[in-house]
């Protein structure tokens, strides 16, 4: 009996509080007072409008930002009877816009044909110095610097039946001045992207010796 009474009283009290709270809030709003005082409009789970304003559960989960781990050596998939393994399409040339656009074209073509593109990266630019002999004398002087740009699109699990079609399209749209080649991906290709660490190698040599 007592508990029931208590509950009823509680209900009445809270309802009163709720009404009072809402009225106070509306007063606050109308009188433009600073809303530093938070009045908790506690809703109970039995209320039909419980949790009506919640939206955080609808937003996509924002994972905390990880720090970049060291790039792992990915397992290079082997070729099966009907699919190629991992291979690199390298586009290189002197004109960066052409090379860049051509590699982008290949990448977009793969996306359109649902071919899996593992990675798409650029190798460091190589500079070639063109040196000319002077008319009199034996000294060479610098005439021009040619920069070779290279872009690689790494493709994996391409069907063997699709490959001739893909190659046909890509070859027919190859611009002039751009070299194009298809190579099998290997461990050495992967390691070539990293900088050498001379101190580490020196220490390792010392340990081994």
């Amino acid at each position, binding site marked *: 009996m007592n508990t029931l009474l208590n509950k009823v009283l509680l209900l009445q009290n809270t309802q009163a509080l709720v009404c009072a709270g809402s009225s106070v809030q509306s007063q606050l709003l109308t009188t433009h007072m600073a809303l530093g005082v938070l009045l908790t409009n506690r809703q109970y789970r039995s209320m039909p409008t419980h949790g009506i304003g919640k939206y955080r559960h609808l937003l996509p989960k924002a994972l905390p930002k990880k720090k970049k781990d060291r790039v792992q050596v990915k397992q290079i998939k082997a070729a099966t009877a009907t699919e*190629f393994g991992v291979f690199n399409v390298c586009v290189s040339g002197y004109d960066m816009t052409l090379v860049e656009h051509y590699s982008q074209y290949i990448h977009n073509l793969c996306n359109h044909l649902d071919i899996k593109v593992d990675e798409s990266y650029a190798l460091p630019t190589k500079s070639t110095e063109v040196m000319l002999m002077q008319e009199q004398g034996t000294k060479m002087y610098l005439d021009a610097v040619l920069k070779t740009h290279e872009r690689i699109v790494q493709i994996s699990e391409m069907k063997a039946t699709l490959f001739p079609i893909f190659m046909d399209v890509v070859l027919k*749209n190859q611009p002039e001045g751009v070299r194009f080649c298809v190579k099998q991906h290997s461990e050495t290709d992967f390691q070539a992207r990293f900088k050498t660490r001379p101190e580490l190698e020196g220490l390792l040599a010392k340990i081994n010796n």
Partner: protein
Amino acid sequence: MAAPFSRVYRPLWRIITTSTLNRGVRNVSSSRQQLSAQNVKPAGAASPWALHGAVCVQRLPAVSQDRSPIEEEFMELMHQKDVSSSERCLADSLILLVKKHVGSQKLWLLPQIQWQTGETLRQTAERALASLPGADLTATFLGNAPCGFYKYKYPKDIQKEGSVGAKVFFFKAVLPSHKHLPLEKNSFAWVKKEELQDFLKPEYLKQVRRFIMAL
């Protein structure tokens, strides 16, 4: 084989209005691992269809800037009409056709040769290319998988118990563009896709058209 083509073929139409001053160097170097697509017929079950391997050799177009009017005229004079020259229309891709005796007729076909036991169909296609009289064509094959297929029955009087007709599998190959190839006029032709209908029979043309892309 039909599925990839219908998906890829139509949306990839492009109009190339560029022509050339000099041929662009296009080095096709593919040093990838060869798949083993063995197509060896089982020894016991002899099917009534003879297998042939054919090769679709393409001379790729040279993508470059437009020509000036004088150069256009010069090109017209030199090479346009000569069907057996491989420097014909540099803006389009050309396909090699060969005139061959088939039965009693002389027909224009893609180079093909009969398959022998123990070799893959791609090797058959390579042999077909190598066996062309007078032409040392070294083309790069674009893959181990055939790109097209044509089936025909022999005429009634030739049909025997064990042979009903022949099935031809086409393989795509690409020529390096900077080579000059002197070929005999009457038996070879470098043909654009639009001109194919003047050379090939309708049924054959229908199958061949499916895998030839004019980009």
